[in-house]
């Protein structure tokens, strides 16, 4: 069965010299997408990845990450949007920097693209109706 997990990696400047992400992708046969990256060779930085693949492969990849000494955290929390509660005001779009939350220019309705979400949880506070909540992912 395919699984999907979001992880946050934190690199030291030394880590950035290794082709770490390349190894992660090629060794374990995972489909991955970079949701956020903010890295510079002199300062290090952080990256949020979405990994999809067999459960075993994901586990191995995470172990590999730990073995490599890269700081990793599984973002097991997910943001849920309840479209029945939502009034489409757009307040949440003011703080969503990844544009996971967007208002459709035609219908003026909100849409939520979970794949783009980096679980910063800014929108949860900004939503006046409680339509956005954080849940632990299954």
């Amino acid at each position: 069965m395919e699984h999907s997990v979001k992880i946050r990696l934190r690199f030291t400047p030394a880590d950035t010299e290794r082709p770490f992400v390349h190894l992660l992708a090629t060794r374990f046969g995972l489909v991955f997408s970079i949701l956020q990256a903010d890295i510079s060779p002199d300062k290090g930085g952080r990256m949020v990845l979405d990994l999809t693949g067999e459960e075993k492969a994901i586990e191995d990849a995470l172990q590999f990450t730990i073995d490599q000494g890269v700081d990793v955290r599984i973002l097991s929390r997910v943001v849920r949007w309840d479209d029945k509660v939502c009034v489409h005001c757009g307040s949440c779009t003011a703080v969503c920097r990844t544009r996971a939350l967007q208002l459709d220019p035609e219908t003026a309705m909100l849409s939520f693209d979970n794949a783009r979400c980096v679980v910063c949880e800014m929108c949860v506070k900004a939503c006046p109706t409680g339509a956005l909540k954080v849940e632990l992912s299954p």
Partner: protein
Amino acid sequence: MKTISEINEKIRAGSAVVLTAEEVVRMAREQGVKETAKKVDVVTTGTFSPMCSSGAFLNFGHAEPLIRMSGVKLNDVPACAGLAAVDCYLGATELSETRGMDYGGAHVIEDLIAGKKVHLSARSYGTDCYPRKSLEAEVGLSDMNQCFLFNPRNAYQNYNCSVNTSDRIIHTYMGTLLPHMANATYATAGELSPLLKDPELRTIGIGTRVFFCGAQGYVAWEGTQCFPGYTEYEDGVRSYSGATLALIGDMKKMSTDYIRAACIYQYGVSMFVGVGIPFPVLDEDLCAQLSKGNDELFTEVSDYSVPLRSRPVLRQRVSYAELRSGTVEVCGKKIPAAPMTSLKKSRDIALELKRQVQKGEFLLTEPAAKLPLDTTKHVLHALDDPK
């Protein structure tokens, strides 16, 4: 030239031509204002925005033995009971004594309109004619006598667009404003916004019937802080702002489709209020105003990191078309702009009102009195003001 009574005749006969404000903007662009004024009888508007100055008068009916309530709480939210025995006024922004900013007067109002019962707890000092000293009850709208919203300030004509130039995040009634002007928020439905469409208040006054949270409500008075005025730009274009309305309407006829409680992070509780006003197309002048689109309606950009009476204005003139595009330019920087007003709900209201007028369920009104255009603005002088 048409009159309101002629238009009402047409509405009764089912032959009135009714367009929403968005539709009339398109029609005037295609066919011209002159033709549009001839063809169209009514233009409907709508807005759905947080409006803090809202609240409800409730009458509970008398209990046995009688009580003259002096302290009233509904689901732990205190209401003002300094009225007759079983009357109270529940303010939308009043916070729950147990749940703080997560629940307030607006939530009680929403729960009641949704058909839920709320817990009433009343205290009294007891009098000869009202001996009871305390009372607990579960009450819903259908158990009570008159319940009406009376919102002292709704339907702001225009509102500024907010940014934050400081280096820390601020949480305001205009939403979360990121540091270094990383975002902007605005709170008007633009070309759908009621009072931007009759900017000189020619047709709207005391007694005007309006769509109010799903019910037919009325303009009760000028709104508090109603200071109608305009800014004239160099090219002679005027941007109107400052008018507000005090609205009244029967809660028992309202629907949570058009009124909802709002929690504004670290600011408090507010209420999304849905208001729609139908405007009679009396003549070409009015039609020209009604046909103004988002690119012809403007506001200014203010810096909310300065909590003073007059906040610094960073840009004098920005169109609703630009704001609606999702990006606004301020001080040479392009920043994401997000609304606080639901365009979707504003549109739904204008469409629903259109449907009601077309069906003859909603007639237009001649105002009983005009709203004042020459109000004077006072500020509050505190005892510790610097001399």
